[in-house]
């Protein structure tokens, strides 16, 4: 049994561990004390990381849909078929697109981007998780000029104050929750902004209740309290911040509570403070504003640019940052260069030897609804996108759908061509954590059947669309990534023992452009109810969870128990409506209505009804295109 060091394939904390294999099969996971992030610890997902690759429905042969049935074919046949059909559709003037992935390596994403832009001549390039995490990064960039995090997980442990906009940190990012816990254990003040009683909120010194979707209002309140009490860091404000006077004006009418004053004092007086913002699904602009306002709060209190202090956007999936770094977005090239930045375009054109398309592309949701041919790399849009099952319906209408994945996801099931690729345990490559650490994957076992490493398959596709280069290994691809985006140029030169290639900490050397979160999203009338989609990232539909016997149990059980989903309601509201636990309620909004069973909770704010992300499809009519809406609640 040889321990193979690798990087955790789940959330973006970037833990490391050893995969254990015996006679060519994965058998377990072993801890590492030398890994700089995990430090001898793992969460439940990490401990069971070997399971999905071993127990899951793996794709083992290239498959082509012929007369409604997926039939196995040779690799050459499959790749030629893909090239032929897509070329035919392009020649017929039809649009095409590519989805990259937050669970694919940097190398795979880079080649997916190259395939789209240089090969298929389109900027219709995105990935599902971008809808969840993109707004956080954009909000941070608006204030700081860059979207790199300014602290590491280990820095959190020595913070004196932590401001956490709470999704459910203990569930989504256990390693980050561990760091927060360690700080609180040492006496740090934890302040949470939340609408439910989560585990982290129970550990908090101060809970700032926020109406769902109105977290920005609380951040604005904190900003106003800082200014009102004269707690700004004068040096930071005078030297680094732009727009201070406008900020002061924008905050004049903002209501400040005693709790906000207390929180503002703790934040401002701390030598080291941490600001954590979780990923939320959908409704990009408000999330972006919240991220920007949080960065503003960190900037005016002097915590941006101060060693050990700063803001860390909590990205949902392991390689969200890597996919963004590789330019898997419709409007950015590798390295976050804007599509209309001529110098960057020219550099990439020189590197790839092809002219690049200039019209901006579509985002993931629009791609699904409008292209005729789509290549999907290790992504399952119905599981991730807020549009849920409507994404599957849209995928079903696409004329030619090609899926590269290790697992038989719902998206792969309806593909016209399935190309089996190696899972994280069977390929070389790199992953970039939310801290910005670029870390390696290593091969622990061979891919099953005829599956091949994703970078090889994508390189073959690139070659068929005249965007090729000869890559002998994933490292060759990484070398080219270094030419396309300078930050990756040093990858491989100063590696620590775990292959970590250093943190991309934000330099935050420039000016901060201050701004507020602005108007709240929704102000329901007194006594009425709001229906809120719980945008805490749902791991249950992720193939690495759903194919793991240990990790999938809770989710499977819940789906079995609640085939019609459920909505959570607080005891007080349930009594007022006269609904018993488990019985259905009728929810009516301006968009539509739905009848859903209830689950009664004691820790929910009165007036708020919460729908788990996994059950969003059952109330899709009520939400329309929103994630928060005013509803009428009645017995059904």
């Amino acid at each position, binding site marked *: 049994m040889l321990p193979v060091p690798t990087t955790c394939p789940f959330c973006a904390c970037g833990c490391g561990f050893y995969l254990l294999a015996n006679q060519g099969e994965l058998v377990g996971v072993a801890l590492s004390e030398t890994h700089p992030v995990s430090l001898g610890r793992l969460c439940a997902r990490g*401990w069971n990381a070997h399971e999905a690759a071993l*127990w899951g429905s793996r794709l083992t042969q290239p498959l082509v849909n012929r007369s409604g049935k997926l039939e196995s074919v040779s690799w050459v046949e499959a790749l030629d078929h893909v090239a032929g059909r897509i070329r035919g559709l392009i020649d017929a003037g039809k649009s095409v697109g590519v989805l990259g992935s937050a669970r694919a390596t940097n190398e795979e994403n880079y080649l997916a981007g190259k395939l789209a832009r240089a090969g298929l001549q389109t900027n219709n390039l995105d990935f599902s998780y971008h809808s969840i995490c993109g707004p956080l990064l954009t909000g941070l960039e608006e204030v700081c000029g860059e979207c790199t995090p300014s602290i590491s997980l280990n820095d959190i442990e020595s913070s004196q104050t932590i401001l956490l906009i709470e999704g459910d940190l203990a569930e989504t990012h256990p390693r980050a929750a561990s760091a927060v816990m360690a700080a609180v254990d040492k006496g740090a003040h934890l302040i949470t902004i939340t609408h439910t009683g989560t585990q982290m909120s129970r550990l908090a010194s101060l809970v700032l209740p926020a109406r769902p979707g109105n977290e920005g209002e609380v951040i604005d309140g904190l900003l106003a309290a800082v200014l009102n009490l004269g707690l700004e860091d004068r040096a930071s404000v005078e030297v680094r911040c732009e727009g201070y006077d406008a900020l002061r004006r924008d905050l004049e009418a903002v209501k400040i509570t005693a709790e906000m004053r207390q929180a503002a004092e703790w934040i401002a007086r701390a030598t080291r403070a941490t600001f954590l913002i979780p990923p939320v699904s959908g409704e990009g602009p408000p999330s972006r504003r919240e991220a920007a306002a949080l960065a503003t709060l960190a900037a005016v209190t002097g915590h941006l640019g101060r060693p050990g202090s700063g803001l860390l956007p909590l990205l949902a999936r392991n390689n969200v940052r890597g996919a963004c770094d590789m330019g898997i977005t419709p409007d950015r090239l590798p390295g976050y260069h804007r599509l209309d930045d001529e110098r960057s375009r020219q550099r990439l054109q020189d590197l790839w030897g092809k002219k690049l398309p200039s019209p901006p592309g579509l985002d993931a949701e629009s791609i699904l609804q409008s292209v005729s041919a789509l290549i999907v790399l290790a992504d399952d849009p119905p599981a991730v996108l807020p549009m849920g099952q409507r994404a599957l319906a849209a995928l079903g209408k696409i004329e030619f759908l090609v899926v590269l994945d290790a697992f038989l996801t719902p998206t792969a099931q309806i593909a016209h061509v399935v190309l089996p690729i190696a899972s994280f345990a069977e390929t070389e490559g790199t992953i970039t954590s939310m801290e910005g650490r670029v870390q390696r994957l290593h091969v622990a076992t061979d891919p099953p059947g005829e599956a091949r490493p994703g970078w090889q398959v994508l390189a073959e596709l690139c070659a068929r669309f005249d965007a090729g280069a000869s890559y002998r290994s994933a490292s060759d691809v990484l070398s080219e990534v270094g030419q396309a985006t300078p930050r990756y140029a040093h990858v491989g030169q100063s590696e620590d023992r775990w292959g970590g290639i250093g943190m991309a900490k934000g330099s935050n050397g420039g000016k901060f452009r201050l701004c507020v979160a602005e108007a709240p999203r929704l102000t329901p009338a007194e006594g009425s109810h709001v229906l809120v989609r719980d945008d805490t990232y749902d791991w249950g539909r992720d193939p690495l969870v759903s194919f793991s016997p240990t990790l999938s149990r809770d989710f499977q059980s819940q789906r079995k128990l609640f085939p019609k989903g459920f909505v959570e309601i607080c005891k007080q509201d349930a009594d007022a409506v006269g609904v018993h636990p488990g019985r259905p309620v009728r929810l009516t909004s301006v968009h539509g209505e739905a009848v859903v069973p209830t689950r009664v909770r004691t820790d929910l704010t009165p007036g708020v009804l919460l729908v788990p992300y996994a059950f969003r499809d059952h109330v899709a009519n009520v939400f329309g295109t929103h994630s928060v809406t005013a509803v009428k609640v009645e017995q059904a």
Partner: protein
Amino acid sequence: MVFTLPREGTTQWLEKLLEAGEVIAPVRGPCGDVIFSALRSPAQVVWDFENPLHPPKQFVLPQTDPLVKIKLNGQRHEVEPIHDDSSRTLFNVRSCDVQGIAFLTRMHEAEPPDASYLRRAHNLTIISLACTTPCPPGFCACTDSGPFLSGGYDLQLTDLGGSFLVEVGSEKGEAAMAKAPDVFRKATEVEVAERKALEVAAKAHFGPETCHFGSAMRRISTGRVQDALWEKMADWCLECGGCNFVCPTCYCFSVKDLRRDGTWVRCRMWDSCQYTAFTLEASGHNPRAQRKERMKRRFFHKVSAQYYTRDSMVGCVGCGRCIKTCLGTTHMPAVVAAIRKGKWHE
């Protein structure tokens, strides 16, 4: 009988042991961690090390353990047991882990005996290395499972500097020595005295962790731990299951069939009693749905008088691994202290 093994004789002995079967020993892994792994050459063995965080219990109770192969033959299912008959030597294992394996063996020997586990355990020769310097998080003095052992091993080595004192604990131990009889000689009285002095010195050099099981056992066994305390502590657990997986005495498992080329392989897999779904029933009912209930169950199981009255030991060997690996702060010494004092973080 007590023998002496000159340091230079270890290579020859290990070579002979390797000829006879698999030798598992702490080796330095690719990223600097010391890990229990199958030796390829004697030079890989590390002699001066803090106990590896990943325990050696995986060699008697693997994380994924194939038990039987199930084949469909016509209309009938044929079941074929999978035997792991490999002869293994666990070399340089620490005292706490020896006691851990002894604990697991007692449990798996109980009616009905677990043939799969016992086959591995019976084919395992345990050569321990006494802890002349206790590891920083260890508290084996509180569980009577170290730093030196008075039994449970096949051979116990003590590092005397230029040589190792070898104490024989069983016939398996004698057989292991017989692989290279020429490298051993009878120990002198001075060497035996030196080993005793090292044990006394080691006991005086424990780290800061202590775990007073006595009063905690009384309180937990007589139902004197308030529910509110479990509730409070449960908020400081992140439900990673790490405490179970690294614990030398934890053996909880679940069973799952793995499909492989027309056959199914029924596997036993490590599981954690701290996971919500561990006790989840098919109906959807969960007798321990709340974390405080699962935590209470775990510590009752480990600390209450049930094992003590039977085996004269608690369900903990004081290795301190849970302190290092706990993603929250609810490791054994912290919880035992809270049970004893009746308060948490106050």
